[in-house]
Every structure is written in structure tokens, then in C-alpha cells.
């Protein structure tokens, strides 16, 4: 394997050139006037809202995702939520979040799925965007330079229907400024396996990871599916094949009907379920994965509040990403980062590390693949 190099992001350059961004507002503002039960309790362990902060200790929320990818804090924007980031920069507060993962990008441009592409579900969203993107070359030409000046690491989400194309894309990123890492979307149909998703089978997932690892030294995140019968096996295979970190989870296939029940609501019929409706499943999968591998896990699935962030940390995630909830509220990831900071300070912690894995001690004897609900 080639020597690992340190990835330069705007984060660790700031000493040299100074921030490219105007001085950040200290706190990301909440959505004004929104009456919502967002202050679901369970904070600070006790269930009480946190009162006046305890005398502050120097706080370090940074996260090391491997291969030199350091995040200033453990809150990311999940792939697909805010496109390539640049479009949403006014709302995003990029200087306050850990990293942005881009929309899924393919070697050649794709026009995506027929409309409608989104439908509402109880506490969630069903989407079938279909990897609508202009293709890797166009993306790099349009955005890479701006990303290089951005005050946050940008992780490029890659999608393909065969191993060779994944590797080819990774190769083309070598030396491109502005790319802090890659995330492989393995919830893509594998053309060589009759369209079975890479993420469903440990050997397919391992093959892609190995090929991409050979092609690039960039920090490599591999994104897994909650639909895998045994996420632990897939996670182990990916970790053994050179992934620096695992992202979990992607969406889960679902169906919503049109109001008159004459057809599916989405043009493609099925779509991926995301949002709070997905959260318990995501929590279970992250728990399974985090107890099976040693590499960091970036968790996502229905995060809308600090309480959800703490849940994912408690089952072993090193970092947490916000997807669906950031579509309607792009300032949310920055606010969650602020709230996590406040929470650590209120608990007198010097970092969030002691919040990680607190709920892992109570391990289930069997993986979920063996069935949970009917086990005697």
C-alpha cells in the first residue's frame, strides 16, 4: 500500500492563510417561531434540561476518521441533503460543522428518476432522486476550487454500478484540491450481480472497497445499507479491505401510494425511506456495526435533535450525520454542533469521547440477522 498522506483541509490550514470565511456567528440560530417539540428530553442523562453551564473546561470535539481526515466536530451533513454544499452555503454555516458529504456522483452524468421523486411519509420522506448529477468531471470543474477554499472538509459521495467504475472515479480524484475524502455509496445495484446492491453482500462490498483502496490514498468511508441481512459481516469485510471509516445507514426501500390509490406516489414506484421513521433501524444497525469493527462509524438516520446525536454516540458512533432534517432546515447541523458543545460543557467534559459507546455494554447475544422479534 502507498504511503498515507495527510489530507489538507481548510480546517488545518487556517493558521497559514487565515479563514476564507467571514468570522462565524458564535451560535447557529434556531428556526424562529417554530413550535415543535424539538426539546425532547433525555439530555444530560437525567432528563432535565441543562441549566447554567458548569465552569468551562477546554473542549475538544475533533474527530479522526483515519488517513488524516480530521473533523472539527462530529456533526456532518449527509449525502444528498444539501447537494454540493455551495448552493446552500448561505444557510449552512460551514465553519461550524464537521464535514459535508456531497450528493451521489457518478463517472458520467445521470438525469435521475422520473418525477415525482419525493413523497411525505409519517415522520419521514421517501425519495427516488436516482443519482441525478452532472458527472464527476463536471462536478470537479464546477466545485473543487471552491471546496478547496471552504472552511470545512468536503467528502465526495461516489456511486457506480460496477467495481471498475468506482475505482476509476477514485483514481481521478488523486491530487484534486478540495476533496477531503470519498464515501462509497454501496446502496447501488451491482450490474455484475443481477442488480443486487453491493451493500447487501460482504464479498461485493469487500471487492469495491479493495479496488478503491488500491486506487487512492484519500480517506475512504464506505456507506452501508440497513437492508443488509447481516450488517456485521458486511462491516467486517469492508474494514478488512482498507476502509478508514464506515457510514451507516443509507435509506431503506419503501412505497407510498398516490392519494387516489391508483398508482404509487413516486415516478419510480419505490423510494428510499429516510428521516425519524428510519431512526430505530439505523440505531440498531450502527450498534451492530460499532460492536463488530474497530474503525470509526459515522452514523445517520433520522437525526433531528441533540438527543438523537447522543443516542448514536451511545451505540458507538464516532460522528453523526444529518440528512433529511437538513433539507427543510439547513442550519440544523451547525446548531446540533453548538448544542453538543454546550452539552459537553454542562457535563464538565473536555470532549465528547466519553459519550461514545455508553450503551454498548449491553450487547445482544445474536446478530439481528438471526431474527429479533420471535426469539424465545
Amino acid at each position, binding site marked *: 500500500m502507498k504511503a498515507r498522506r495527510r489530507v489538507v483541509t481548510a480546517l488545518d490550514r487556517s493558521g497559514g492563510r487565515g479563514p476564507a470565511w467571514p468570522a462565524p456567528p458564535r451560535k447557529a440560530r434556531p428556526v424562529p417561531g417554530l413550535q415543535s417539540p424539538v426539546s425532547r428530553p433525555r439530555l444530560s442523562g437525567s432528563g432535565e434540561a441543562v441549566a447554567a453551564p458548569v465552569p468551562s473546561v477546554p473542549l475538544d470535539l475533533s474527530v479522526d476518521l483515519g488517513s488524516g481526515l480530521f473533523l472539527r466536530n462530529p456533526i456532518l451533513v449527509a449525502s444528498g441533503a444539501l447537494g454540493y454544499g455551495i448552493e446552500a452555503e448561505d*444557510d449552512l454555516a460551514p465553519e461550524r460543522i464537521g464535514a459535508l458529504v456531497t450528493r451521489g456522483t457518478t463517472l458520467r452524468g445521470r438525469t435521475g428518476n422520473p418525477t415525482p421523486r*419525493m413523497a411525505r411519509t409519517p415522520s419521514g420522506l421517501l425519495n427516488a432522486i436516482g443519482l441525478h448529477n452532472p458527472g464527476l468531471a463536471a462536478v470537479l470543474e464546477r466545485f473543487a476550487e471552491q471546496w478547496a477554499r471552504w472552511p470545512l472538509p468536503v467528502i465526495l459521495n461516489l456511486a457506480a454500478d460496477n467495481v471498475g467504475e468506482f475505482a476509476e472515479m477514485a483514481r481521478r480524484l488523486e491530487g484534486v484540491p478540495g476533496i477531503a475524502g470519498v464515501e462509497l455509496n454501496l446502496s447501488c445495484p451491482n450490474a455484475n450481480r443481477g442488480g443486487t446492491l453491493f451493500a447487501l453482500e460482504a464479498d461485493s462490498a469487500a471487492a469495491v472497497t479493495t479496488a478503491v483502496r488500491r486506487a487512492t490514498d484519500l480517506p475512504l468511508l464506505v456507506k452501508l445499507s440497513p437492508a443488509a441481512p447481516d450488517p456485521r459481516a458486511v462491516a467486517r469485510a469492508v474494514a478488512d479491505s482498507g476502509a478508514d471509516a464506515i457510514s451507516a445507514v443509507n435509506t431503506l426501500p419503501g412505497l407510498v401510494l398516490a392519494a387516489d390509490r391508483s398508482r404509487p406516489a413516486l415516478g419510480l414506484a419505490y423510494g428510499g425511506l429516510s428521516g425519524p421513521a428510519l431512526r430505530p433501524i439505523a440505531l440498531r444497525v450502527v450498534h451492530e456495526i460499532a460492536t463488530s469493527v474497530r474503525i470509526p462509524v459515522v452514523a445517520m438516520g433520522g437525526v433531528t435533535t441533540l438527543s438523537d446525536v447522543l443516542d448514536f454516540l451511545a451505540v458507538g458512533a464516532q460522528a453523526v450525520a444529518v440528512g433529511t432534517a437538513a433539507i*427543510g432546515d*439547513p442550519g440544523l447541523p451547525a446548531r446540533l454542533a453548538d448544542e453538543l458543545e454546550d452539552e459537553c460543557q454542562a457535563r464538565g467534559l473536555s470532549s465528547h469521547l466519553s459519550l461514545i459507546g455508553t450503551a454498548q455494554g449491553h450487547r445482544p447475544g445474536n446478530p439481528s440477522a438471526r431474527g429479533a422479534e420471535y426469539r424465545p
Partner: protein
Amino acid sequence: MSTEPVVAELVERRVILPDQRIDAFHAPAIAVSARAGQVLQVLLADDEGLVVRRAFAINTVDPSTGVVSVHVAGPARADALAHLRVGDRAPLAGPFGRPFEVDPRTTHILLIAEGAAIGRLRLLADEALREGRQVTVLLGAQSARDVYPSTLLPDEVEYVVATVDGSLGHPGSVADLVPQYEAWADQTFAAGSPALLGKLAALSASRLTRMGVAKLGRRRAAAKVDPPGSPSARRKSFLQVVVELDVACAAATCLGCVVDGHAGLLRACREGPVFAATELSLETVA
């Protein structure tokens, strides 16, 4: 572009038809800048704190009082604003999207709507009258019960109705009425089902031939093509339509709102929601 919301009070609620009402908010920032065809978003949070944005066409504005109204339509169970009472405050964002563009030379404008979609065109009537233009509204509805009250339109507007069941006005589709006004109108603006928009696009495309008007002047080989979504593309077109694809982010990032255009996919929230009919593949939309 920022999608940051402002807090606005619901100052009036007026039921105008079964399952249709006008909600008016005090939102001066939106009222002074909004133009016909643009939308605002109401931000809503569910029990889990998930913030979802709902788009509503801006129905009327009163910059002097800072009030902006939306025409809310649909069955009560799907009523996104049901939880609000007069006096409540809610976060609104906008205005978003590109507005209708009227050619400065236009004196006669024809507005064509189906049912509650009249709310997407209502503000254009005000704008056109203010600029000294003549306005005719053609409205299609299922039956007399569903016809938009004429009292909600300015007195100067000529208002013609078609009902599918024949209980009021012309029996049949609103599209049947269009040929009578084609010679009168300098520009037309439409909102309604994809089927209606498809029909109107076809009528518009064949208009000059049917009216026996020959295009005079030399044919320019490489006529300047206006980029999709540009104001000039709309200003020059005989028919402008407003499409209704849900606008989730309004920031052109989620790609949930795309519509088929001749030049590729267009985003309703960025290049639309108002388009020149000639920019879209309305046959496929229909």
C-alpha cells in the same frame, strides 16, 4: 441564496369554498418583494422535530400593510396549516422562484386556471391592472359549487367560467374557451393540471397557423436562444405556465422538483416555477 425564515402572524382566515380558503400572514419582507408566480414556504415541524417546508403560491400582497395571502386548497386531512389559528405565528420563507414576465408591449392578458390553481395567477391580475392592462380570467371547475367567487377578483377583470357538469357557464373544459380569446390576448398565463397545461401548450403552438397569421420578415437562421429560466425567455412567450412540483428545499439542492425541459431537466424552485410553455416538454408533463 438564503432560505432563512421570518416569523409571521396569521392575521386572517377566510373560507371561500368547501376545502378552500385564503390565509393571510403579516410578513412585510415578503409582501414588499413578492411578484406574481413566486411562492412562499411555511415551515412545519412534526412530533419528532422534523422540519418540512410546504410551498404556497403567493395569492395577494399588500405592501402598505405588509400582508401576504395564500390560497390553501385540499381536503382537511391534508391541510398543512390546520394547526394554525388566527393570531398564531409561524415561520415563513421566501419569496422563491422566478415570476411571470409580461412583455412591456402587452395590453391584453389572458389568465387560464383550473379550480384552486386560480390562486397561482391571482396576483398577476393585480399587477397587470396596476400597469394599465386589460385582464380576462378563464376558470374551469367541476361544478358551480367549486367556482371561485367573482367577488375575490378585481372589478376590472372579465371573468368567464366553464364547468365540467355544465351547472354554470360553458359546459365542458376551460380549454374549449381559449380559441375565442387567442386573437384578443397578447399573452396568456396558465395554472392547473398537467393535462390542461399540455392542451394549452398544443393550442399555443398551433395558434398562428390556425389564426391564419403568417410570420413576416426574414427568417433568421441562428435566432438567439434565451437560456431556460431567463426572464427574456418568458417575456417573449405567448404562454407561460406555473408547474406544481413540490418544492422541498427551495435551494436547488435536493433535486426533488425537476421538470422535463427541452434543454434538459429544470428545477421548479430555481429555473421555475413559472416557465415559458416552449421551454418545457409539456406532452411528457401531461
